[in-house]
C-alpha cells in the first residue's frame, strides 16, 4: 500500500511541517512542490504554499541566480502562512543549498542529491569546499541520496536520453518525501499520466521514478523514521487549491456572469499580473474578451471604452503599470463609468524586484492622481480572498459607477491555499441596469441613495449624450467652468465614494473586544499576523487582530475599535502607509512595523514585535 502507513519503520507524529523543494530552474521544483501540495490536500491537511522563482527566464544552470524553490506548509491545524523556518529542505544542487540553507531549522531535515555536489556545481555556487564533507551542515539531519544514479537505474531499460532521465529526478524526490510524510501518490501519478499522455514513455519513466523514490526511502537505511501529519479539522465542503491570480480571474468571471454582461479585460503583460490575463484569455466561453494592448495606458483605455459600451471592464497590472494608468483612472472617475483596476503589487520603486512581493502601492492607489480624485480601494487578504474581493470590486464599481482599485500582491498572486468553492447562486447580487427611458433623462442625474449617475450605453435611442474629462455641469453634464459648480461636483464625487461605507460589513475582531494590543493589517500580511496573534493569545496575552479589506472608504466601526486597545500595531511591507492613513484619519497613536525585503513577514517577527510592545517598549522603528 503506497498511500498508507505500511512501513516497517517507526512513525512519529507532527502537527505542522514546512517543506521547501529547491533546485535549478530546470529541475522541476515547482512541479514537485505542486504535486506534494495536492497530495497533502487530499490527505486532509490544511495547507499554504509559496513558489519562489528566479526573475531570469533561463538563468545559467547551477548558478545562485537560477535557483527555483517551492515552499509548502501542511498541518493538522489551521494554517495561515506557508511557514517561517523549514523543517525539511530538499536541495538538488549546491546553489539551491546555499540560497536556502539559512532558513532550515536547527535539526531540520536536509535531503540532497549527492551527485549534484560535483566540482563544477560547487564552483558555480561559490563553495570553496563541499558542504557535504566539510562539516558545515552538522546542525541538520543530512540525507544524501544518489538521486541521479538511482533514477537512471530505475529507468535504464526504457531507452530514454540521458537528458530525459535527468528530468525525472524531481519525481524521485517527490517519491522520497511522499514516503517520509505518508502522502498518497495517486494524485501525482494521475497528473503524470495526463501531463505526458502524448508520450507514454515519459509517463512510464516519471511514474517509475516516483515509485523508485518511495521504495528507496522505505528500504534504504537513509531515513530511520517517517512522520505522520493527521488531517486538519476543516469546514465541510468541496475544496481546491487556488492561487491568488487564478482566484482573481475567477472572481471577475463570476461577477460578470452574475451581472449578465460580457467581461472585458484590457491588459499589458507585466510580472506578476500576467497570469490573470492568461487565465481569462482561456475562458472565452464565459463571454470573456481579452485585449492584449500595446501598453498599460491602452489596456485601461480599451477597458474604459468597453465600460462605455456596457461591458464589465477590468484592467490588470502591477505597480509600474498603475503609474501609467493613473490619468485614465482620473478620466473614469470624471465620466463616472465602472471599471476595476487590479494592481498586483511588487517590490518597487521603478522596476524594483519584479518577482518579489511588497505592499507599497497603497498610497498611490489612494492618492496617486491629480485633482480631487477619490476611488474605492480594496485589498485581498489571502490567495482565496482574491476571488471574493475581485467580485466585490466589480459589485461596487457597477453600483456606484466608479473606478475601483483592487490591491493584491506577488505573494498572494503566486501563493496558494485551499479554497472552499462557493455556491455560485449564493454570491452577492451584481445587477446592472442600463437606463433606456428618455423621459427626464440627464447624463448626470444621480441616484438619491448611491449618488451614482445612470449607465446609458451607445445604441440606446433617444439618450444620445456626450461624456468627457472636462468638468461637467451638475445635472446636465454640459461642460462647465462655473466656480461653484466645480466645487459641487468635487464634493458630490467625494460624497459618492464616502457613501460606499454603507456597503462595508463590520470588521471581524479576532480576540478580545478590548485589551492591551490591537494588530491592524491589510493585504497579504493576514496570514502571518493571524498566526502570530493566535500564538500570543494562546500564551494569555490580551491581543486582538483586525484585517482591513476595504481601504477606501475605511469601515465605519474602525475608529471605535482602534480606541479600545492600549496600543495599535500596524505591520506592513512598506515604510508605513496604512499606519499613516490611520493616524491621519483617527488621530490614534498607531505604531508601524515595517519590512521591505521583497519577502513576507515571518510569524515569529510579528510575534516578537508584539511582545516588545506588550512589554512596554514602544516606538521602535523596524523589523531588521
Amino acid at each position, binding site marked *: 500500500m503506497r498511500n498508507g502507513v505500511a512501513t516497517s519503520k517507526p512513525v512519529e507524529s507532527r502537527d505542522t511541517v514546512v517543506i521547501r523543494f529547491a533546485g535549478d530552474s530546470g529541475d522541476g521544483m515547482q512541479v514537485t512542490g505542486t504535486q506534494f501540495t*495536492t497530495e497533502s*490536500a*487530499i490527505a*486532509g491537511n490544511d495547507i499554504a504554499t509559496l513558489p519562489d522563482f528566479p526573475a531570469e527566464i533561463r538563468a545559467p544552470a547551477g548558478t545562485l541566480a537560477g535557483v527555483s524553490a517551492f515552499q509548502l506548509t501542511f498541518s493538522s491545524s489551521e494554517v495561515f502562512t506557508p511557514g517561517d523556518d523549514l523543517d525539511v529542505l530538499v536541495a538538488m544542487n549546491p546553489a539551491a543549498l546555499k540560497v536556502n540553507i539559512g532558513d532550515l531549522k536547527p535539526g531540520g531535515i536536509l535531503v540532497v542529491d549527492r551527485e549534484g555536489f560535483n566540482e563544477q556545481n560547487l564552483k558555480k555556487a561559490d563553495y570553496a569546499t563541499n558542504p557535504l564533507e566539510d562539516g558545515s551542515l552538522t546542525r541538520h539531519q543530512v540525507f544524501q541520496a544518489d538521486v541521479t544514479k538511482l533514477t537512471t537505474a530505475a529507468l535504464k531499460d526504457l531507452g530514454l536520453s540521458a537528458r530525459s532521465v535527468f528530468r525525472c529526478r524531481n519525481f524521485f524526490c517527490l517519491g522520497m518525501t511522499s514516503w517520509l510524510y505518508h502522502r498518497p501518490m495517486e494524485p501525482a501519478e494521475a497528473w503524470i499520466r495526463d501531463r505526458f499522455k502524448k508520450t507514454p514513455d515519459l509517463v512510464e519513466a516519471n511514474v517509475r521514478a516516483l515509485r523508485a523514490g518511495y521504495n528507496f526511502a522505505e528500504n534504504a537505511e537513509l531515513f530511520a523514521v517517517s512522520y505522520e501529519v493527521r488531517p486538519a479539522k*476543516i*469546514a*465541510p*465542503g*468541496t*475544496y*481546491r*487549491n487556488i492561487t491568488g491570480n487564478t482566484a482573481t480571474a475567477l472572481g471577475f*468571471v*463570476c461577477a460578470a*456572469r452574475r451581472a449578465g454582461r*460580457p467581461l*472585458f479585460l*484590457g491588459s499589458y503583460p507585466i510580472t506578476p499580473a500576467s497570469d490573470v490575463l492568461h487565465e481569462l484569455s482561456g*475562458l*472565452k*466561453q*464565459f*463571454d*470573456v*474578451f481579452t*485585449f492584449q*494592448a*500595446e501598453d498599460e*495606458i*491602452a489596456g485601461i*483605455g*480599451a*477597458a*474604459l*471604452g*468597453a465600460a*462605455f*459600451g*456596457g*461591458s464589465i*471592464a477590468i484592467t490588470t497590472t502591477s505597480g509600474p503599470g498603475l503609474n501609467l494608468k493613473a*490619468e*485614465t483612472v*482620473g*478620466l473614469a472617475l470624471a465620466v463616472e463609468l465602472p471599471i476595476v483596476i487590479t494592481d498586483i503589487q511588487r517590490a518597487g520603486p521603478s522596476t524594483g524586484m519584479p518577482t518579489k512581493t511588497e505592499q507599497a502601492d497603497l498610497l498611490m492607489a489612494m492618492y496617486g492622481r491629480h485633482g480631487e480624485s477619490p476611488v474605492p480601494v480594496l485589498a485581498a487578504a489571502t490567495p482565496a480572498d482574491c476571488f471574493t474581493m475581485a467580485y466585490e470590486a466589480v459589485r461596487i464599481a457597477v453600483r456606484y459607477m466608479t473606478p475601483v482599485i483592487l490591491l493584491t500582491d506577488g505573494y498572494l498572486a503566486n501563493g496558494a491555499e485551499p479554497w472552499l*468553492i462557493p455556491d*455560485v447562486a449564493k454570491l452577492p447580487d451584481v445587477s446592472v441596469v442600463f437606463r433606456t427611458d428618455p423621459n427626464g433623462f440627464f447624463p448626470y442625474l444621480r441616484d438619491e441613495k448611491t449618488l451614482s449617475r445612470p449607465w446609458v*450605453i*451607445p*445604441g*440606446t435611442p433617444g*439618450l*444620445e449624450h*456626450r*461624456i*468627457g*474629462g*472636462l468638468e461637467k455641469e451638475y445635472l446636465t453634464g*454640459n*461642460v462647465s467652468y462655473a466656480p461653484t459648480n466645480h466645487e459641487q461636483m468635487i464634493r458630490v464625487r467625494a460624497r459618492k465614494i464616502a457613501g460606499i461605507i454603507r456597503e462595508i460589513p463590520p470588521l471581524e475582531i479576532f480576540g478580545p473586544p478590548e485589551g492591551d494590543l490591537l494588530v491592524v493589517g491589510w493585504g497579504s500580511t493576514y496570514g502571518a499576523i493571524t498566526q502570530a496573534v493566535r500564538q500570543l493569545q494562546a500564551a494569555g496575552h490580551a491581543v486582538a487582530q483586525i484585517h482591513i479589506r476595504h481601504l477606501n472608504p475605511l469601515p465605519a466601526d474602525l475608529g471605535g475599535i482602534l480606541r479600545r486597545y492600549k496600543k495599535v500595531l500596524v505591520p506592513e511591507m512598506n515604510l508605513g502607509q496604512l499606519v499613516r492613513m490611520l493616524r491621519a484619519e483617527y488621530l490614534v497613536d498607531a505604531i508601524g512595523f515595517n519590512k521591505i525585503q521583497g519577502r513576507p513577514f515571518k510569524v515569529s517577527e510579528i510575534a516578537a514585535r508584539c511582545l516588545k510592545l506588550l512589554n512596554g517598549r514602544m516606538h521602535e522603528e523596524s523589523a531588521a
Partner: protein
Amino acid sequence: MSALGKKDFVSDQDVRWCPGCGDYAILSQVQKVLPELGVARENFVFVSGIGCSSRFPYYVNTYGFHSIHGRAPAIATGLKASRPELSVWVITGDGDALSIGGNHLIHTLRRNVDLNILLFNNKIYGLTKGQYSPTSEVGKVTKSTPVGSVDHPFDPIALALGAEASFVARSVDVETKHLQEIVRRAHEHKGASFVEILQNCNVFNDGAFNDVTDKATKADATLVLEHGKPLVFGKNRDKGIRLRNFQPEVVQLGNGVSETDLLVHDEHNPALAYLIARLGPPRFPAPIGVFTAVDRPCYEDVLNQQVAAAKSKASADLATLLKRGDVWTVT
C-alpha cells in the same frame, strides 16, 4: 428609421472654435454625411482625445466621449471590440494622434479595428496656443521654437501606411464635396480607416495649406487620386506623374508623352500607395484622395468569432469552472 437630416446631428452645444477655423467646415461636412450612411443615430459614437479637434464630439448629436490626450484610439478600440455593431469614429489632431498618442494610433491601424479615424492636421498646436507639432516643417518658428524647430516631421499618410492601415486617405477642410466623399468612403471601408484632413488654423498657422486651397494654385499643387485613373493634374490637366528608374517625376503631357506613360492609381496596391505618399511639395503636387483601400480581417470580428466559437464548443457552467483541477471534499 425615419429619414434623418443634417440638423439631427447638430447638438445643442455652442461651437467654440475660433472664428474662421477649418474645423467648422469639417464638422459641417461630417454632419451632412452622417444621415446618409444608413446608420441609426444612436449607433454612432464619436471618441476624441485632447486638442481643438477633439471638441468635435460635443457638437455632434450622437453618443460621444471626449477623453484624454492621445488615448482615443485605445478607448475606441475597447468600445468597438465589445460592441461591433456600433459605428465608431475617432476625431484627433496632429499632436493628439501623432505625438502623445502615436503608439495607440499605429497599433489601432495594425490591428485593423473597424474605426473611422479623422485626423485634423493643421501642423501646429492650437489649444496650447501655438507650439510646433510633429507635422510642422523643420525650422518652424513658434513660441517654443523661437529660432526654429529642429526635428523632422512625420507624414501622416506615410506613417499610416507604414502601420499597415487598410484604408488611408487625405482630404482638405474646404474641399466640401471631396471631403464628404472621403468621409463616406471611410465609413464604407470595413477596417481601420485613416483620413488626414488638411485643416487651416487661422490663428496660429494661417495659410499652411494655401497652395492646395487657393483657387489660383490648387490645380497645380494638388494631385487628385482616382482609382484606375492615371496620375494627371494641373489647371489644364496637362501634367502627370511618371515613374522612371523607380523615381517618380512630373512630366508635361504632349510632345510624345501621353497618359499611357503615367502611373495609374490603384487603391489595392499598397506599394504604389507608399510611393504616392512620398509625393508632395515642393517638387510634386500634394496627393489627395484614397491612397489605399485593401481588405483585411478586422480585429473585432476575429475576436468576437473566437468568443462565439468558444461558446459553441465549451460549456460555460460556472460551478464546473470553479471546480477545475484537483478537487477534494471534506465531510
